[in-house]
């Protein structure tokens, strides 16, 4: 039978309706999958009760793929077909990969991303990452669903805060290949902050200190209104816990005179070094034996003081990027409300002490630093899958391109700027252009360009039944709302009469990331051109509006209030403006508008006098006293 988990009060799911979602930490060295069960986030272990899956994939000639511990163990045997740390190649071209120095892989250049030649054929970093994700997915399926025929709703996958669009897209593609539905990509430091429940606070600034196996990242996050914003990131891509192991191994080789160059001996020495490092977290000294391949045995000893002294330089190297990140975020250490420790290497007491000293406060370290990112991702996944009440929903997605609508003259008016976090709702007021206008066409567009023709058209609809009013008197509120799934609904409402109409669209539908990138790029490269086009369109609209208003006034009062020559002067100014407005020079149009305004000054004054006189006619002075 199915096994039940304890639910929060009032939130029991109906049978067969478990909405299971997992959080995945797709790491450079190790990957983990976690889920919320019975109200608590926990890492899902594999058959051997291991929480960490080494991010190592080995390909065999017969097409077999082995992932994890077994692949890692055979790394030395078959380096060319055993891919380690594939995360470094995600979304990267061959030029980027070259800076990692000598690697045992055969790279092949391909558009966008490198490919790796293996015995099982050419593989892209996306394919390789997908293999890791597949294993994690199986692990999750087995752990969560049992014999049940339910299905995983999806996963939240974490990425480093500095990942660019290409790297994020590659991660998403890998998940799709592995058959995972990506609910969201979450920044690793944000996931760590969520795991510590920092998102329950109303606001604050936090530093996330992430010292992993081979990389160091520091991120400064600001929380406001439930949304984490990454203020600054910094780090050292060639500094990690492994360097501490190397330091110990080098120290032993030097002091104990281990001259062996046998690869297996060196690996064993490194393993002892790692064990010593881990032991020194809770013990003040450690001892072990190293059996060399020539049969000789060496006693290895290390005290915590020695270890700290020889690796102090490494610890100091982490502090520089921290200071830089704080400077970039324009913050002093006193302004940081909390420090979160991530990555196994932050267990080392002297790392803890150095961080505590720098920030003047004890870092948060009561969660397992290896698991904290996955746990945070699981909590986020659980929320996104709809297993928690809506009020504590945390959403971090942003709108990739601005959303707006078309205004007179073919201009795009942005209502929601790009990079706004969703869900978001913005309203803007528009008005009618002509007297007695009873309908308005709303054209919803997406893009960064100034002219509608350069943007992407999303939807068109009409607002009808506006009560007839003079131009500019109607107040039409157009509301743009984007919900958590990126679904846009636009509603238009005339506020005096309450007439309303609405439309729903999915703005990101059918837009690949490279198209978005292309649209963004074109907005930058056409910035000058666009500004000129906007100025011209605006003046043209203004010219047409002015002509419209003057002609309306002429029809009404022209015969009564104007002498023939005055009227002729106004009419010629109208004609001149009409002609110039067809041209391309916005300054000339502006001048012509000014000239028309100038020749109509007397006319306007007389109309004003008369309407004041009309208003006062037949009234006593007392009635019109300013009340």
């Amino acid at each position, binding site marked *: 039978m199915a096994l039940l988990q304890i639910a929060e009060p009032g939130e029991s799911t109906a*049978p067969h309706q478990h909405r299971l979602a997992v959080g995945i930490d797709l790491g450079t060295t190790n990957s983990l999958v976690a889920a919320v069960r019975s109200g608590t986030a926990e890492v899902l272990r594999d058959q051997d009760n291991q929480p960490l899956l080494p991010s190592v994939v080995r390909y065999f000639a017969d097409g077999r793929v082995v992932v994890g511990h077994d692949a890692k163990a055979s790394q030395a045997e078959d380096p060319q077909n055993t891919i380690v740390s594939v995360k470094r190649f995600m979304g990267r071209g061959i030029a980027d990969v070259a800076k990692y120095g000598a690697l045992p892989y055969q790279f092949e250049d391909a558009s966008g991303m490198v490919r790796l030649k293996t015995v099982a054929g050419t593989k892209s970093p996306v394919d390789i990452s997908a293999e890791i994700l597949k294993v994690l997915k199986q692990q999750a399926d087995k752990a969560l669903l049992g014999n049940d025929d339910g299905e995983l709703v999806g996963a939240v996958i974490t990425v480093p805060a500095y990942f660019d669009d290409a790297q994020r897209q590659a991660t998403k593609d890998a998940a799709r290949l592995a058959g995972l539905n990506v609910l969201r990509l979450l920044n690793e430091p944000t996931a760590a902050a969520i795991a510590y429940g920092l998102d329950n606070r109303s606001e604050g600034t936090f530093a996330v200190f992430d010292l992993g196996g081979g990389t160091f990242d520091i991120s400064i996050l600001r929380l406001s209104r439930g949304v984490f914003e990454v203020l600054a990131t910094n780090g050292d891509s060639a500094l990690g816990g492994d360097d501490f192991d190397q330091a110990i191994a080098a120290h032993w080789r030097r002091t104990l005179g281990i001259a062996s160059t046998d690869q297996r001996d060196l690996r064993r020495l490194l393993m002892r070094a790692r064990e010593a490092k881990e032991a020194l977290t809770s013990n003040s000294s450690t001892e072990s034996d190293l059996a060399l391949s020539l049969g000789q045995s060496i006693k290895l000893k290390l005290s915590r003081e020695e270890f700290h002294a020889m690796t102090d330089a490494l610890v100091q190297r982490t502090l520089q990027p921290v200071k830089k990140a704080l400077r970039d975020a324009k913050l002093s250490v006193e302004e940081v409300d909390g420090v979160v420790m991530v990555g196994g290497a932050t267990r080392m007491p002297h790392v803890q002490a150095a961080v505590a000293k720098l920030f003047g406060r004890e870092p948060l370290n009561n969660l397992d630093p290896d698991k904290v990112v996955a746990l945070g991702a699981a909590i986020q996944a659980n929320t996104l899958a709809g297993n928690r009440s809506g009020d504590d929903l945390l959403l971090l997605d942003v709108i990739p391109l601005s959303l707006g609508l078309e205004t007179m003259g073919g201009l795009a008016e942005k209502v929601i700027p790009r990079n706004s976090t969703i869900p978001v709702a913005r309203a803007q007021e528009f008005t009618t252009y002509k007297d007695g206008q009873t309908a308005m066409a709303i054209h919803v567009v997406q893009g960064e360009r100034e002219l509608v023709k350069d943007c992407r058209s999303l939807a068109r609809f009409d607002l009808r039944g506006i009560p007839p009013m003079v131009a500019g008197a109607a107040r039409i509120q157009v509301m743009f709302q984007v919900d958590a799934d990126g679904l846009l609904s636009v509603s238009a409402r005339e506020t005096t009469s309450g007439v309303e109409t609405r439309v729903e669209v999915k703005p990101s539908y059918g837009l690949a990331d490279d198209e978005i990138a292309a649209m963004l790029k074109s907005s930058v490269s056409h910035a000058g051109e666009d500004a000129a086009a906007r100025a011209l369109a605006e003046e043209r609209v203004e010219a047409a509006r002015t002509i419209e208003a003057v002609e309306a006034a002429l029809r009404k009062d022209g015969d009564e209030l104007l002498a023939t020559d005055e009227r002729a002067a106004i009419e010629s100014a109208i004609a001149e403006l009409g002609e110039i407005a067809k041209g391309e020079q916005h300054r000339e149009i502006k001048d012509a508008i000014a000239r028309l305004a100038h020749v109509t000054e007397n006319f306007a004054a007389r109309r004003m006098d008369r309407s004041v006189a009309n208003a006062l006619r037949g009234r006593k002075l007392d009635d019109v006293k300013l009340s």
Partner: protein
Amino acid sequence: MAITLTDRAAKHVQNYLTKRGKGVGVRFGVRTTGCSGMAYKLEFVDAAGDEDQTFESHGVKVFVDPKSLVYIDGTELDFVREGLNEGFKFNNPNEKDKCGCGESFNV
């Protein structure tokens, strides 16, 4: 009759409550949904209801509303691990029939 917890189930409930940081026990009950008529529910309890019956075994309080009790009286809750999957299992003597997955049942 009563509702009982095995030692292991009690330990896990206690564990979850501690991790959750609040709550006085668990609520065990039934709802009239599911493919065989009724479904179990298991939830944390922050405050007991007026009509709740309380059972205690191995130091853990189980709250049951009287309407549910008729269907589940005598049930023993156990915590089991089946392969990679783990969770609570019910041994309900009233159960006559259940759907394939055992999540919903009939009396």
